[in-house]
Structure formats: structure tokens, C-alpha cells
């Protein structure tokens, strides 16, 4: 019975079915199932497999994004309980805050990176687009992420990545977080120039980059 339920959880993620994933998460709580087992045998298994399928070229982008959103839906319900339970502390490989900088409303690239990181087991907080520097700073000081991702698609808004990093330095928050940058006009040279910790030109490498930075 439980094995079937775990299988359903795994499938809900692989199918990218947010509603079903949430329903199954509720049933974990209602039926007092083992949280760690539900995660490891069910939801996390699904997202890991989704990530692998994507890497193998079986899954296209929409499938990956839906899988990431499905596990997010499940996690939203389970996080309070996971925090309380003793064995649940290790579910996340690290915390990531990600945002498209102020003046720029381009969403997709950042969303893909967020989905890939979620699939890889990171706890990702996506702040959305056109996010002012002060809000990003606030998120860094409150959420204390391990990694901050800054996205910019325009040659003009790239400058804002630099601005955010300068402000982090000024507010003495820079040392507590690794900053990675991305976006079509951004390059590794630009990342160096503005004292970012890393750059990658695609989402799969962004996951490797984060792993390396936190390794």
C-alpha cells in the first residue's frame, strides 16, 4: 500500500502534476506516513529521475519545469513537518535565491536555472523579475542563501548585476553568499569584472557551478 503511494508520488513529479503532488503530500500528513521515506522513495526520487531524463535528452524543457513546480507544490505542504522531524533536515543541498534584476522583465532563463537547481535538490527561492536591489539585499539578509543568482538579458540591465554586488559589499553581506550571474549578454569576463563568483551560459552548467561553489 505504502509502496504504491510512494510510486504515485514519484509519478506525480515525473508527470509534472502539481495538483496530484500536493494532494499526495497532504495524504502523507493525514496518514502520518514516514516523512523521510515519502521524500526519498517518492517525491525526491521523481525529481532526481526528471533531472536525469532531462540530462539524457529524454525530457524537454516543459517537462522539467513542470516537474520542478510539482515538487515545489509538495514541499510547500511538507516543509513545516520536515523542519520538525529529526531526519528531515538534510533534504536540501543548499539554499538559492534567484532574481532577474531591476529594469529587466525577462523570466525564462532564470526560471530554467531555478527548475534545474530544484531538480538537483536545492531549495530555490525565485524572486521573479524586475526585482529592485534593496529587495534582493533584504532577501539575502533574511533568508541567508548559500547562493544568489542574478539574471539580466539586456546590455543595459547587466549593469544592475554590478550594482547589486556593490551594494552587497557595502552592506557587508557579500562574504556570506556566493553570487552567480547569467543572461544572454553576460560573459565570464563580465562576471570577473563585477566580482561575481561564477557564470555559466546554460542551466545544466549552472547546476554544476553551484555544486562546485558549495563543494
Amino acid at each position, binding site marked *: 500500500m505504502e509502496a504504491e503511494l510512494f510510486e504515485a508520488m514519484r509519478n506525480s513529479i515525473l508527470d509534472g502534476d502539481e495538483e496530484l503532488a500536493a494532494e499526495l503530500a497532504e495524504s502523507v500528513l493525514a496518514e502520518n506516513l514516514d516523512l523521510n521515506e515519502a521524500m526519498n522513495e517518492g517525491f525526491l526520487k521523481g525529481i532526481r529521475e526528471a533531472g536525469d531524463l532531462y540530462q539524457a535528452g529524454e525530457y524537454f524543457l516543459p517537462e522539467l519545469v513542470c516537474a520542478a513546480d510539482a515538487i515545489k507544490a509538495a514541499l510547500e505542504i511538507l516543509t513545516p513537518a520536515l523542519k520538525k522531524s529529526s531526519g528531515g533536515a538534510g533534504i536540501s543541498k543548499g539554499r538559492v535565491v534567484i532574481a532577474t534584476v531591476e529594469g529587466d522583465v525577462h523570466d*525564462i532563463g532564470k526560471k530554467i536555472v531555478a527548475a534545474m537547481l530544484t531538480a538537483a535538490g536545492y531549495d530555490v527561492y525565485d524572486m521573479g523579475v524586475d526585482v529592485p536591489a534593496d529587495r534582493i539585499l533584504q532577501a539575502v539578509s533574511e533568508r541567508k542563501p548559500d547562493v544568489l543568482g542574478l539574471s539580466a538579458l539586456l*546590455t*543595459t540591465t547587466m549593469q544592475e548585476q554590478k550594482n547589486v554586488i556593490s551594494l552587497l559589499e557595502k552592506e557587508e553581506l557579500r562574504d556570506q553568499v556566493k553570487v552567480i550571474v547569467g543572461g544572454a549578454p553576460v*560573459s565570464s569576463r563580465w562576471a570577473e569584472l563585477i566580482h561575481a563568483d561564477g557564470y555559466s551560459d*546554460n*542551466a545544466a552548467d549552472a547546476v554544476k557551478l553551484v555544486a562546485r561553489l558549495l563543494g
Partner: protein
Amino acid sequence: MKMQGKVLNEEELLRIHKDSIRILEEVGVKFPSREALSLLEGRGAKVDWDRQVAYIPEVLVKAALQTAPKEFVMGARNPEMDLALPSGWSVYNMDGCGVNTLDFSTGERRSAVLQDVADSARVFEEIGLCNVYWPPVSPSDVQNESGGVVRTGISYINTSKHVMDEVKKKEEVPYLIEMCKAMAGGLEEAKERKLYSVTYCTVAPLCHDEAMLEATMELSGFMAPILVYPMPACGTTGPASLYSNIALANAEALSSIVIFQLASPGVPILYGSALGVVNLRSGMFLEGAVETGLQMTATSDLGKYYKLPTMNAGCLTDAKEPGMQAVLEKVLTTLPLVLVDTDVIQGIGLIESSMTLSLEQMIIDGEIANLCKRIKDGVKVSDELDFYEDIKAVGQGGHFLKQKNTRAAFRTDEFYQAALCDRNSYDSWIDLGKPEMFGLAHKKVQEILEGEMKNPMPEQTEKQIREIMDEADRKLNEKL
């Protein structure tokens, strides 16, 4: 006859038009600008002020399509290069806002600098069929706030052809008008000559960008032609069928035409598009894909349906360097546009999804343009080209080399002489050092850059333009 293409028939055009109207009326478009929303509301659009969304009724679209002129002239500093639209044949421009250049000396990819704008403008000046210069790169060595004005100034100094660019904020507009005045002789002359036009991109799906919207509205008062340029990509920023993505792009284009015609009735509009598809795994925008080219060709049909001059993205590639993939994709994204009579194809000289400039590629693309034009011109069946008498004179066997018609025809555009394609015998090709396309293009660029500048700007005007650039540098960066 000339060779004709068509992607959408009348029934399909009407259906897409109706789809777009439905999107405008029922889904609405976001205008994050009080000024724009007030204008729209004042003319009968329903506005949701909290969400900054306007629902645009068809009557506003009809009115806008009526006030938008069906023909106009994009002036050039050198009047011989003026471009009357519709043009009757496809001409080319450059596509803006790349960030890299393949260095002409080393061949290495590096950050673009202002000198690249100057060099590409000089090369552009000497390529036939090229009329509209949009600085192809955002130079990394200029100050951010004044960068747009500075690269526009450098463009005018280095090419006598029409210049197009983007305006990112209102504060840039007065400097651009000052430049046009300096070249045309006065404000009224500058308005009349239309030496500057502007690209206006919507942000898919169904959004306008506040700063760019207000800047372009401001500029519309100067009657500078506006290229409306939606760029949704199937499956990411647009729906996942070419058909519906085109309907979405058209809705964005129509919403732009409406707002600019409301701001400045009669302002010239170029109906454009830069739609795309994506890499299904990474989500990256693909320019060289055939589905990208197809969508652009279809939107060119739509522009004609609205009787507006058209400027559509073409001659595109996702290849990282000039070579086989670049030529393959560029030809396939150019020829269909030529066949449907797109007025301006945008644009030449860029690779890597328009992120990287190559001066050599400009020359190669100029050749693609010429070859496509020859196909477009088709087989001319006319009395002038009816050489029955030659056939009769030569009869059976023999040759036509000594016919007067032959000698004359070999010097006409009946036979295009490709400049970059090797057409020698194998041994001659070896003897000539195995000439290939890129090497020949490199040599041509070198000749242009080392030669004297064609149609240089009068010294006094250049002085004025440089003063305007300096002032923009001083004033626009003040806040920083």
C-alpha cells in the same frame, strides 16, 4: 514574372487578424505607463489600472491602421541612399544589440567596442542592397546612460545611409533630434527627411516596457518611423504553435501601432517581427531555425495585409562562427522573405543568434542578398529577351558566343556574377591558392577599411555631431 511566395492565404490572414483582435479585446495588453493607459482609456479602451492592462477594441486598431501612412521615405544623410517604402524589392539592414565581435585581426571573439560600430558602418556603406544601418553591437567601452546616443552619432559619421536604433529612455530623445537637425539643417527639415528611425520591441507575452514605451512615444512626436518588433518564442514566451505564436505577435504589433498612432497620429510604422522557436531542451531562442524563418515570412504576409511597409528579421544563424551552418541557415531565413516581397530584411553580418558581429560575414551576407535577388527577379519573358532570331541564325550545331545579344546579355543582370563563389576549374583554384568565401570576404573588408571613406560627413557637421555626443556623455551620466 518575378518569383512569388506566400505563406498565408486570405482566409488564414483574416483568421489570424481576428485571433489577434480577440487577444487584444479579451486578454488585454500590459502598458506599465500612466501616460499610455490614459491615452488608451480616453479613446475607449477598457483599462484595469491595478494590473496596468488595457483591453483594446477593434475600432481603435482600425483607426490606427488608417492613420499609419502606407508609404514614406526613410531619409539618408546622402539623399541618393534614401529608401522609399514600400521598396519594390528587398533591401537589408543590420540587426542591433549584439555584444561580441569576431576581431578582424585575430579572429577571436571579444567584447564589442565603439570602433566596431564605426568599422561595420564603413563596410555597410559599401554593400549594395543595404540601406538601413542599425548599430549591430552595444559597445562595452562607452558609458551606459549615453551609450545609445554615442553609438548613433558614430553611425552617422561612418555611413551616409539611413540609421535606425533603439531608444531606451526619454532623456536620449532630445540628443537624437539635435543630431538630425545638425544633418538636415533645421527641425522641420529633420522631421521631413526622417534620417532616424527607431526599433520598438514589446516584451512577450503581451507586455510593453515602461522606459522604452515612453521614450518611443516621446520620439513619435518627431515623426521618426517606428519599427514594431514583437519577439515571442514558441513554447516559452509564446504559445507552442507557429500559427498561434504569430497571432500573439500580431496582437503585440497592433497594440504598439495603436499606442503610437494615438500618441502621434500619422507617425510612420514599419510592420516587423522577430518571432522564434527555442532549443527544446535549454529554452534558448533559435534564430536560424527554419520555423523561425517561416514565422517571419508569415508575418511579412500579415504586414502586407495591413498595407504597411515590412521589416522582418532574416539572414539569421545560430552558428558560432562563419561557415557552413551560418550560410545554410542564413540562406534559408532570407530567400523566403525575399520571395514574399519583404521590404527590409534585418539583418546582415551577425552570427551566434545576433549576439556576435563579423565584418566578413557582412560581405558574405551581401552576397547571399544578391543571389536571392537574382532568384526573386525570376525568368524575364519579354520581347527584349526573345532571342528567336539567334536560334534561327545558329541553327543546328554551332554556338551562340558570337551573337550580339550574347555579348550584350553577358554584361546585364540576366547573369549574376557571384563575387565570393569560386567558379574556377580545379587546377586554377589550386593555382589561385584555393580561394574560399571567408578569405575573399576578409580581403574585401580590408580594402574597405584601408581605403578612403565613401561619402564622408562634412567636417562642420561631424563637429556638431561629436559635440552632441559629448554633451550626452556629460549630462546623461550625471546621476551616476
